[in-house]
């Protein structure tokens, strides 16, 4: 069953919008995706009919809201193949999920000389929390480098993951190169050395079928807003025994069992990690986004993006002066194409494209070390999702060509 973009586009009200008098061509999906009407309706329903604070409430609204909130936990668990709803903690975003692990697990269990293995393609969110931890605890960070195809250097995997490794924290899919990393093998190697594996799934969970038990990862972090869901909801999956032994992260209401003036005991997993009133409305609505994706089928989402990348690379490669980053093979990358155009800064390209109605991202994509590694100051990035169609490349290419004409002038003309 292929993705029928024509039909899907009808479900996304924002796609009817114009930008600078042109139809919106939204190719900034790696930053955040647009939302289907069912998601918007779910939010409206929550706030119009059963909004209440959850847990501890004995009235009907509180029971309904609690029921829906906890049902969403189960929906999320099922979506990523987690054994149980208690493996799922709701956070604000991927970034908070990773910080939670750095605080609640890292600060408790790591000591000076322990090693954490990252990679040079990490998003700042999977880098800065470990830098802070490293500074505080004397933990050593090691980095798997990438080769010219944008893949992990196999030697580095073997060289860096060893007996001192306590954690391997890598992205499942790069938000710049699109590279889909061999995380199953990495988990195997890490576990051989008794290390845990955290996957940054911000880009993979929205775009690929992901099963935590098959991948055998210990932690998985991702964001609802990158998979048709609302902003303000992140997920942290962890194996149950890890959640049990971790300290709480934030303290306050909901996460406690018993509070006395001088000390407190903690609630059960997963509530131990959800302090204060959660983002109830958005969590409840999130289930509509997951149901929508499940309805399409993640295998089909993936197949659609492979097609989009193949076509996108083909079209872009025809433009003179274009450099495309990341793996050659569309099978080894997700729906992301980073590129540069000779003599045109990505920011200028972005501005010109915007005036053609085309939304792309330009900059370092929160991956400054990778920019250094690629020896560029920035890249332009087009990224796709279920509602994008090949026809949209026309506007993209047109805009790029306009930018080329505008900026790439013969030397010594003009004033």
């Amino acid at each position: 069953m292929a993705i029928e973009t024509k039909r899907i586009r009808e479900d996304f009200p924002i796609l009817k919008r114009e930008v600078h008098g042109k139809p919106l061509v939204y190719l900034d999906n790696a930053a955040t995706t647009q939302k289907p009407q069912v998601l918007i309706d779910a939010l409206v329903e929550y706030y119009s009919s059963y909004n209440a604070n959850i847990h501890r409430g004995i009235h009907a609204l509180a029971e309904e809201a609690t029921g829906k909130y906890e049902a969403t936990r189960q929906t999320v668990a099922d979506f990523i193949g987690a054994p149980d709803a208690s493996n799922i903690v709701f956070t604000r975003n991927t970034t908070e999920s990773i910080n939670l692990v750095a605080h609640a697990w890292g600060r408790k269990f790591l000591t000076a000389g322990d090693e954490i293995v990252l990679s040079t393609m990490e998003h700042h969110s999977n880098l800065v929390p470990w830098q802070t931890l490293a500074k505080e605890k004397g933990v050593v960070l090691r980095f798997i480098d990438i080769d010219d195809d944008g893949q992990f250097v196999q030697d580095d995997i073997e060289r860096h993951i060893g007996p001192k490794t306590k954690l391997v924290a890598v992205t499942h899919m790069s938000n710049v190169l699109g590279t889909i990393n061999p995380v199953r093998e990495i988990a195997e190697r890490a576990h051989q050395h008794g290390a845990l594996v955290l996957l940054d799934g911000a880009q993979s969970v929205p775009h690929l079928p992901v099963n935590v038990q098959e991948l055998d990862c210990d932690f998985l972090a991702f964001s609802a807003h990158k998979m048709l869901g609302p902003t303000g909801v992140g997920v942290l999956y962890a194996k149950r025994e890890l959640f049990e032994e971790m300290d709480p992260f934030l303290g306050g209401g909901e996460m406690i069992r018993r509070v006395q003036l001088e000390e407190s005991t903690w609630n059960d997993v997963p509530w131990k990690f959800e302090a204060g009133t959660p983002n109830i409305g958005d969590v409840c609505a999130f289930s509509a986004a997951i149901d929508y994706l499940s309805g399409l089928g993640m295998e089909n989402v993936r197949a659609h993006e492979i097609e989009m990348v193949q076509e996108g690379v083909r079209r872009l490669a025809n433009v003179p002066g274009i450099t495309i980053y990341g793996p050659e093979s569309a099978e080894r990358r997700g729906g992301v194409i980073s590129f540069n155009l000779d003599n045109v800064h990505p920011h200028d390209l972005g501005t010109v494209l915007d005036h053609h109605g085309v939304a792309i991202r330009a900059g370092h994509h929160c991956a400054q070390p990778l920019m250094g590694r690629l020896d560029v100051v920035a890249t332009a990035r087009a990224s796709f999702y279920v509602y994008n169609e090949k026809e949209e490349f026309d506007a993209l290419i047109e805009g790029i060509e306009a930018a080329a004409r505008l900026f790439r002038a013969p030397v010594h003309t003009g004033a």
Partner: protein
Amino acid sequence: MPQSIPEPEFDELYRELILDHYRNPRHSEPLSDADVVAEGYNPLCGDEVELRLNFENGSVSDLSFGGRGCSISRASGSMMTDLVIGKPIEDVRRLSEQFNKMMTDPDNEVPEELGDLEALQGVAKFPVRVKCATLAWHTLEDGFKQRDEGGLPPGGVVRHEE
């Protein structure tokens, strides 16, 4: 040549003069023995600027501008060299202030002494691009501070970060 672009602001952003400075930057050959070298960096877009400055009798006697950046940041730096070379430092400081004001308040009238830089006025309407335009100027101010403090610090150059 650029196709006709329908929207007025877009035209205002990429004025012909800006494109010209971008394509043919002035004073882009690095001064070989500068009194002061100042580097600027905008981590948000990765823009890099290198200014090399010579001074004589309280004036900017020579100035080169280099680096990697977008059209706005490069045009701004290039125009700056044209405007600044030969001027007393105190005059340049006033120009810098006026330029910053132009960037933060799009409705402000542009003083004549800014010359070609007036072409950058449209940038003020594109908030995400303002830092591109001001990077060269902020780096210049850093260069002045360096001179006041007696030339190059032990590390060699002073870096300005937006």
